[in-house]
């Protein structure tokens, strides 16, 4: 049973607390207690703190909002209770709040301004320490019961938005492909299709618990879907046995890199996680049918939120796997989550599939002294993607050959010097084993960026001497290598809009209206793709 809830910032400073009974401790009291039972270093790491025999505090950190959610739970008799409930509930609450306030991210200000609403929301969700299940966890239900204030901002905002829509509508008719806000992605503007009737509707009575009963008439009916894919990839770069002498002709290499370089790269493991979120402003009780072009990806078993009809999904997608996916759903009003999918890249043996827009390669042992390295980032041009955001290349240096005798530990203090850099800036750690090549916030596609640097070993001379001395002393160490630090791993992070990494595309979005409801002539449909490269590691070791 949940005793109390707290929302804090990432440093655990209280923002909001929900104390539904006289016995619920305030956060400052709880915090003192938590501190007394955990070591200082563990405080940020631990998600669960046992306070007493039956008391524990759970924490969920919301990455989007950079907030911590805490709850205090007493668990007296039920041993057989699933132990992750609290984490999932806190995550759900985080989502509910975002949907309720119609925000992409919650700010502390928003929360402090709405203490009364927050308290009521928590009270509505939780009843006597248990989550209320009569549909109370749907943000639209909450909006019904605890209405949001419509202030001037909203009004002006919606006016501006309508204006924008008019603009983009005009744009569409002139056959350019634009999208709301961001001008990427594709848009569909089909007049709504067939008038099938699937489920019965009775007045303004609730048909599905997630759809509000009091939906006002939207002047302009719209539905948006956002595809967000996060990608994790680890590539192994094969060792080059034959060392190249002299400077490589990097430019020519860059141009043809996708064909030549990639053949030397092998995917070790990786996966793509996709999330489809939506925003629906539709009247009545529409059933929306989403047709996806899978681009040969196996979606596995997707995870659907409540609004999706799983039975239909199963019957619709029995045979024609991998080609198309059809998903039918009855969208909630406003922001909602539709589905999540995972595409495993491990199962089938893909030879050298190149994911994403950017192909990247690096070379070691270049230059006269064979102490230079070069990274080539090739952002291929695309008609759908204009720019790549927040591109960062993380460089890691290791000792490549470790044969020589060392007298002192941790002596390798090679200095990284940048010889040539076409884009962005380079920064590195003091100990020089890591460096970051940071691009501008936006980098246009169709760019080739090159970073060439050299690792200066301070102890080159020492090494020489050392080598001599060791050679003299013992004949054992036959192979004594020259300098040791080489670039061994690069990790690339970036995001871009306009195209999904997996290549999944929307074929069509059809809104199937109930016969009774007034037929809108035109429903505006928008799709946005967002790809995030979370881990893209290429290593050579």
């Amino acid at each position, binding site marked *: 049973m949940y005793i109390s809830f707290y929302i804090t910032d990432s440093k655990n400073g*209280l923002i*909001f*607390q929900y*104390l539904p009974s*006289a016995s619920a401790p305030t956060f400052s009291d709880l915090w003192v207690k938590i501190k007394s039972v955990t070591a200082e270093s563990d405080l940020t790491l631990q*998600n669960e703190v046992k306070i007493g025999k039956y008391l524990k505090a759970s*924490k969920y950190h919301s990455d989007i909002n950079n907030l911590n959610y805490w709850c205090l739970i007493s668990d007296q008799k039920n*041993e*057989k*209770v*699933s132990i*992750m*409930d609290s*984490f*999932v509930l806190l*995550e759900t609450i985080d989502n509910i709040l975002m949907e309720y306030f119609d925000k992409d991210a919650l700010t502390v200000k928003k929360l*402090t*301004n*709405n*203490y*009364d609403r*927050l*308290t*009521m929301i928590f*009270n509505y969700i939780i*009843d*006597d320490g*248990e989550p209320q*299940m*009569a549909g109370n*966890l749907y943000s639209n239900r909450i909006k019904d019961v*605890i209405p949001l*204030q419509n202030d001037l*901002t909203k009004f*002006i905002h919606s006016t*501006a*938005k309508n*204006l924008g829509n008019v*603009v983009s509508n005009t744009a569409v008719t002139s056959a350019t492909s634009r999208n709301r806000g961001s001008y990427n992605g594709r848009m569909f503007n089909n007049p709504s299709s067939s008038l099938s009737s699937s489920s019965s509707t*009775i007045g*303004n*009575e609730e048909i599905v618990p997630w759809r509000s009963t009091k939906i006002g008439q939207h002047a302009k009916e719209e539905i948006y879907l956002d595809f967000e894919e996060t990608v*994790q990839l680890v590539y192994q770069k094969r060792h080059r046995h034959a060392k190249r002498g002299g400077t490589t002709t990097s430019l020519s290499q860059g141009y043809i890199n996708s064909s030549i370089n990639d053949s030397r790269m092998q995917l070790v*493991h990786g996966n793509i996680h996709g999330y489809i979120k939506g925003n629906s402003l539709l009247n009545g009780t529409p059933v929306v049918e989403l047709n996806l072009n899978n681009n040969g990806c196996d979606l596995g078993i*997707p*995870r659907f939120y409540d609004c999706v009809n*799983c039975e239909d*999904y*199963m019957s619709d997608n029995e045979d024609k796997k991998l080609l198309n996916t059809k998903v039918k759903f009855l969208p909630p009003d406003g922001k909602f989550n539709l*589905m999540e999918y*995972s595409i*495993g890249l*491990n199962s089938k043996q893909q030879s050298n599939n190149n994911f994403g827009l950017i192909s990247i390669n690096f070379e070691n042992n270049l230059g006269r002294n064979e102490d230079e390295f070069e990274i080539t980032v090739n952002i291929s041009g695309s008609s759908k993607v204009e720019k790549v955001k927040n591109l960062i290349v993380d460089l890691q240096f290791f000792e490549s050959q470790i044969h020589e005798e060392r007298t002192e530990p*941790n002596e390798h203090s090679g200095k990284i010097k940048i010889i040539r850099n076409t884009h962005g800036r380079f920064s590195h750690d003091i100990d020089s084993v890591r460096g970051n090549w940071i691009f501008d916030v936006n980098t246009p596609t169709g760019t080739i960026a090159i970073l060439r640097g050299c690792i200066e070993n301070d102890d080159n001379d020492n090494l020489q001497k050392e080598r001599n001395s060791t050679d003299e002393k013992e004949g054992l160490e036959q192979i004594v290598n020259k300098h040791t630090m080489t670039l*061994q791993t690069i990790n690339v992070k970036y995001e871009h809009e306009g195209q999904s990494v997996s290549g999944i595309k929307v074929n069509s979005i059809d809104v199937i209206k109930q016969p009774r409801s007034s037929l809108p002539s035109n429903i505006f449909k928008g799709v946005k793709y967002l790809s995030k490269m*979370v*881990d893209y*590691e290429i*290593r050579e*070791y």
Partner: protein
Amino acid sequence: MVDSISQIASALESAKAITLEAAAVASSKLGESSYTHYSKNLSTQQLRNLLNSRNSREVKDAMKRILSILASNDTSIDIEEFFSDVVKNISSDDIKVKRMVYLYLLRYAEKDQNLALLSVNAIQKTLGDSNPDVRAFSLKALSDIKIPSLTPIVLLSVRKLIVDPSPVVRSEVLYTLMKLYRWKRNELEEDIIDLYTGLLCDSDPKVISSVLVVFKECFPDRLELLHGHYRYFCQILKKLDSWAQSYLIETLIRYCKRYIIKPMVVDISSSDRSSNCVPLPDKYNQIMFPVYELRMDKDLELFISSLKILRFSTNPVVIISCCNAFFQLTTPNDFRNSGFPDVLTNIAIASSNVGVKSLLLQSILLYSKLDSTLFQQFNREFLPFPSDDTTIVCLKLEILATLINDTNVEFILRELKKIVKHQKNEKIIIVASQTMASCGKLSVTLESHIMKWFIKVIETEKSGLTNNILDCFVNIIRELVSANPRRHLKFILKLADLLTTNHVRADNARAGIIWLFGEIAGIEFKVCPDIVRILINGFVDEGPESRRQLILLSAKLVSYEYDISNENSNGSYNVEDSRVMKMFQYLAYLGQFDDNYGVRDMVRYLTSLFDSGKYEIAALLLQAPKPNIWDKPILDGDSDFVEDTEDIDHDLITYHSYIPWDVSDDVIDSKTLDMREPLPLKDYNKFKKSFSSENYVDTSNSFVRDNASEEIPTDTTSTHSPSVTRNSFTSSTGKKYKLQSLDEFFSDVPAMRSTKKYNSLPKKKKIVTVVESSSEGETDSSEDDETSEDESETSSSGLESSED
């Protein structure tokens, strides 16, 4: 043309940007922030004035401030002193103010119970509101004021609202029952169960969701209550709230274990099927047949098949419950084919919620320890990514350790080596190298390969390794060697090199290697005295642990030499004169003056053995065979669960612990009788749909009085009334209400009032309410603890100041 349009578009776009800015400016002046700012400066007196204001907007503002103080831990104003000012606002017409007053009461009602009672009247009035949300709220508010004398009123309200047409209200009734149960279990248990069994027949998934919460919280062991509902629950599983799905699955697992006959495992590899048929074994993964299928009771099958649709669920709690169901009730084959391992893996890898992620991975680890084939095909998914945090990486590596087999070992080993060599985090390196060590179990070639690799790493990277890592490496080598020392003599010599050339500097690691030589002395005696000879020179420079082990090693050598000499020369050989003995005596001499207590103690204990010439006893002590670490079974023979559990949360293990099938004999005997025959459902929907939705609430209630027919509710005719259904469920459960008490309650004035209200039209009723609250106000019986005989009269006692 296109150009001009895009120009217009950009112009409009910039206009939009300007408007947005303007909006931002405007909102900062007019919006929420400005209010917050303003309210922060309210003084105590101002706040009190606002609370007592007649303007409901001002009251609302003041209440907002009160709630902010409560929520933000603001200590500048003590809001407890506003108690009476706040509570009287409960009679406000604005539902929002009511809610806020109630939220205040939640926290402070127990502090001043008498004053809190004042609010009861006003709350009770709204129990008959036309809006179901308001009715639900009133019931919630009423039951949350935990004052003992209120129980009868709450119970009365429950009885009244239990047949409410709105599922929201009925679910609130269930929560109220839960509160009553927690609160006054001893007095009211029977009443609560009576009411509860009635609600079990409900057809609405929302209500059933709440039913399950109450079941979990109050009657987790009254599984017999579920007999008549089992099949319906399985049918509507998908429609329930995802939390309730999880509760239901957990409950039904226990139900099946008690009331459904254990399924049979049939061997389908042989032609004679009838003979090869055994009940499902209690221990997982202990089915002897190569190919088999599971024959189960129809009801169990229904349950299991209804789970399949849940694999699309986004809620990890549901997924884990489903996995548990397959784990508890079926065979590994069924579990594998259900697709849930796939889902579990995906959701564990994709989740961004660290708490959930680590628990999911722990569950996978647990399942995988019991049956490695479940997750075998996903082995690559468990390779760590650079962005994973330490605990996640460690769990993934531990899972990998369970998944290694001949086909994937090469690949996994390669990856592990890279992790060990290039990771910076000590803990990850240790876990990865332990995982590597478990690869060694597969074959002798791998064993020696891994050992060789570790020795090489120690040789080349001695400077970069911390003591803990070195210790771990040495331990792994030690473990691998001691499994079969004869096979690995080459490596043992290599280790000797490491020791003597000071490659290994850490004390505990050196001590470990020295200990290892003591163990192999019985097999390969020749090398050992040399090691002692070499190390004896640097004895004083060794760490305490190594010194101890060195002394122990020399003692062991003495003991072994004594045995050897006995065999060879039949006791004529004098041990006292041997070099090994001399070395021991020298070390013992040095050890006598050691500043470490442990070393001195070791010396004393060993010298006393040898000085008294008890070589046989020494041999027993020093040559005792050490248990082989690889022989440790993964599965403990007695307990059905994983023994080695440091890495898995204790609660998770309790959660997954196997529930024994415990079907009592009379259940088996009464096979002919269908125990789970569905009980009639109460369908409020059919009833509701027959009316226009605008006024169904009131019309339906008028039926209570008008329509007294005795129809069965499951009938398809659409003119059912709640009163009828109530009759039916009384009969279906075979129990009856205490009519006496009900009469008592209905004879009360408030009950009369409410029925009256139901008859009147909603619009009229509102007027009536206003009239009541504004016109009557003579009495001031604030301390009226009784069930308030004439509630409508004393309704807003003490609160007139704001109402007039």
